[in-house]
């Protein structure tokens, strides 16, 4: 019993049941613990082979029954792992082992077995399996690469990310070495690190730029650590991050280069008006180095008259960040002279990349000097213009007074000369002989001529003052009027023909005057011909209309053409043709004031062609 008690204790602690089948008596015996394993209290039920088999999980029953039969019939021992279903439905995992005791003839007489509840172990195994599955799923889905290498750097395991990073299919990797797949890797720093980790059993974190066999590169963040198999490597592809960093680094370098090499001064100021950065151009412009400026008040070298302006600009910039604030001020150069700076300040305090008021400025001293010079010159010029205008006005007044006096004071004696000559003629004609009368006649004639001269001269000077009022002119109608006036004023026998004339744009009375002068000249200078003829025509030339008056008169020598349009210039004597020499001068003055040109062409004795052009608009 003692032995039996200990045996029961042991069974209970080990959760181990035992059973026996006496094949002679067919008695089945279960130990107490076996009852408990099967979900009963000891001796709740009567143990039997049938009961034992019925407990077995249906899926396992066939195998179990087969093994039992083999044991009973042929005396074969067996071991099996199967499941039983307890009366309450709970499933237990059981390891059972059976031994057959035989008689001398070898016939089975008794079956003995143990019944070991391995459910806890099974559950732990299952939990572990699930856990592994979870790990597997994670390893399959994470972005991080996970690979295991053996001591010869052969790939043992790679998760999908590591396979992706390797750029080889899985089947090319497993069992193959790094050296095979990445020839030349032995020479790399990375390989040395891996070797180190293996040898020293140490862990390394490393950022590495990896070069693939095709020459392309990728950046990886690696954790290399020894493992049971050899090496375990965790790898994160940081190529994009590295590229972005590189891009930013390059951009920063570019901007820095731009700022530091710019001839424009750039200064950054924090919200407390403290200068936090000065580009190198600052000292190039002002002469002051960083050391010179240390401890100086920022307005110290600014011209006293400009400090308020600068303060206001800063205040304005501090208050808003939308508009750059322009500024212009004088500052003392290190060498003592004053220079002008001009620029804008932009509030970028809220820009996290800047957090400053940015001042961009340049030296405009030379421009300022030029501006000052220009101002000075302008002022001088203005003064000169005023002076000249005054002089001009004075001259003009004198001229007016002169023409007034010419018309007034020259006429009175002329009137007297003519008057007294006439009185002599009226009162004393009978006392004069023929010569006396001829001389008297000459006095009267010259008085008349002088009167005409005075009139023409006045007409010419009046032209300078007249305001031109341009409008569209029907030149055919205008010419008609001219011919009527002409026929009234002088007797002639010229044939005057005109083409259909293009309209002109000019002052009616002035263009009328031009036509009168030219046509009457043509009539006058052709009057000695047998069949005098005058022809008026027009044509368009670029933006001008050109009118031509031609005659078949005496013409003139072209070598005197330059004298034609001068005042009082004549190419014929009074005996040949009468005239004062003012008509063509008037023509030229009118046409020039219209923005046109006059031209004359002639062959002596063949006739002349006078033309004038007028702008279309």
């Amino acid at each position, binding site marked *: 019993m003692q032995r039996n008690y200990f045996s029961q204790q042991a069974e209970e602690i080990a959760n181990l049941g035992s059973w026996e089948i006496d094949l002679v008596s067919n008695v089945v015996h279960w130990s107490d613990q076996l009852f408990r394993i099967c979900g009963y209290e000891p001796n709740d039920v009567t143990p039997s082979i049938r009961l034992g088999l019925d407990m077995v999980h249906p899926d396992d029953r066939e195998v179990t029954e087969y093994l039992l039969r083999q044991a009973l019939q042929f005396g074969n021992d067996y071991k099996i792992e199967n499941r039983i279903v307890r009366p309450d439905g709970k499933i237990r995992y059981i390891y059972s082992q059976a031994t057959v005791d035989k008689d001398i003839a070898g016939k089975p007489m008794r079956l003995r077995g143990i019944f070991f509840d391995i459910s806890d172990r099974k559950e732990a195994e299952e939990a572990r399996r699930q856990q592994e599955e979870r790990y597997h799923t994670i390893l399959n889905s994470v972005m991080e690469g996970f690979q295991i290498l053996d001591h010869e750097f052969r790939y043992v395991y790679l998760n999908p990310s590591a396979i992706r990073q390797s750029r080889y299919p899985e089947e090319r990797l497993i069992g193959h070495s790094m050296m095979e797949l990445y020839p030349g890797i032995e020479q790399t720093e990375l390989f040395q690190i891996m070797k180190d980790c293996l040898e020293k059993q140490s862990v390394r974190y490393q950022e590495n730029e990896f070069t693939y066999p095709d020459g392309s590169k990728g950046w990886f963040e690696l954790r290399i650590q020894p493992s049971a198999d050899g090496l375990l490597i965790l790898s994160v592809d940081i190529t994009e991050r590295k590229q972005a960093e590189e891009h930013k680094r390059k951009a920063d370098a570019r901007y820095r280069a731009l700022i530091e090499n710019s001839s424009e001064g750039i200064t950054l100021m924090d919200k407390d008006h403290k200068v936090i950065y000065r580009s190198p151009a600052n000292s190039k412009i002002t002469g002051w180095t960083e050391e010179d400026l240390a401890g100086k008040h920022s307005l110290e070298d600014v011209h006293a008259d400009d400090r308020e302006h600068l303060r206001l600009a800063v205040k304005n910039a501090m208050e808003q960040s939308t508009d750059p604030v322009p500024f212009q001020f004088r500052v003392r150069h290190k060498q003592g002279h004053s220079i002008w700076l001009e620029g804008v300040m932009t509030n970028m305090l809220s820009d996290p990349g800047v957090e400053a008021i940015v001042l961009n400025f340049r030296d405009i001293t030379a421009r300022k000097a030029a501006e000052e010079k220009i101002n000075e010159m302008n002022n001088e010029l203005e003064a000169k213009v005023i002076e000249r205008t005054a002089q001009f006005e004075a001259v003009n007044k004198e001229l007016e007074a002169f023409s*007034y006096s010419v018309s*007034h004071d020259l*006429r009175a004696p002329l*009137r*007297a000369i003519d*008057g007294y000559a*006439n009185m002599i003629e009226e009162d004393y004609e009978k006392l004069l002989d023929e010569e006396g009368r001829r001389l008297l006649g000459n006095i*009267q004639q010259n*008085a008349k001529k002088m*009167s005409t001269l005075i009139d023409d001269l006045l007409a010419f000077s009046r032209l300078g003052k007249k305001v031109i009022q341009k409008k569209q002119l029907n030149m055919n109608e205008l010419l008609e009027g001219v011919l009527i006036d002409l026929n009234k004023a002088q007797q002639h026998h010229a044939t005057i023909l005109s083409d259909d004339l293009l309209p002109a744009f000019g002052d009616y009375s002035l263009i009328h005057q031009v036509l009168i002068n030219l046509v009457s000249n043509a009539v006058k200078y052709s009057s000695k011909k047998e069949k005098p003829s005058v022809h008026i025509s027009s044509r368009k030339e670029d933006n001008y209309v050109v009118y031509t008056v031609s005659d078949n008169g005496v013409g003139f020598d072209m070598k005197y053409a330059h004298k034609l349009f001068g005042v009082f210039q004549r190419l014929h004597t009074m005996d040949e043709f009468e005239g004062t020499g003012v008509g063509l001068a008037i023509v030229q003055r009118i046409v020039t004031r219209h923005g046109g040109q006059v031209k004359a062409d002639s062959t002596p004795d063949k006739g002349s062609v006078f033309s004038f052009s007028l702008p279309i608009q």
Partner: protein
Amino acid sequence: MEHEIEILLVEDNPNDAELTLRALKKRHLANRIVHLKNGEEALDFIHGKNSFEGRDIRSQPKLILLDLKMPKVDGIEVLRNLKSNDATKIIPVVVLTSSKEDPDIKICYELGVNSYIVKPVGFEAFINAISELGFYWLLLNQNPK
């Protein structure tokens, strides 16, 4: 007792005066004419002052021929005086001047001149102009009485 004056000629140029008188004579209009050499005398005459002290100023000329350019008191001043005085503003005043360039034309009309004549340079034209003038103002024109 003086004759009733018909024309007062105010002209400093003796030649012009002679020509004017000759022209008026031709029309027989020069019988009752007074020729004065400057504006001062003219005003004295009209207003009966100084050398004309005592002249019956109820008797005024029917026409004043007035030259503009004269020493001392010029024609404009005479005109202004006459036309701003109720007693004399009804007397017709014809300004005779040498040139149409004269900037005084406008002033004369503003002051109320009755006529503004440019003296022609030619003798015949001058004679004609003056005689027509005298004929018109003395014989054709009806003066207020």
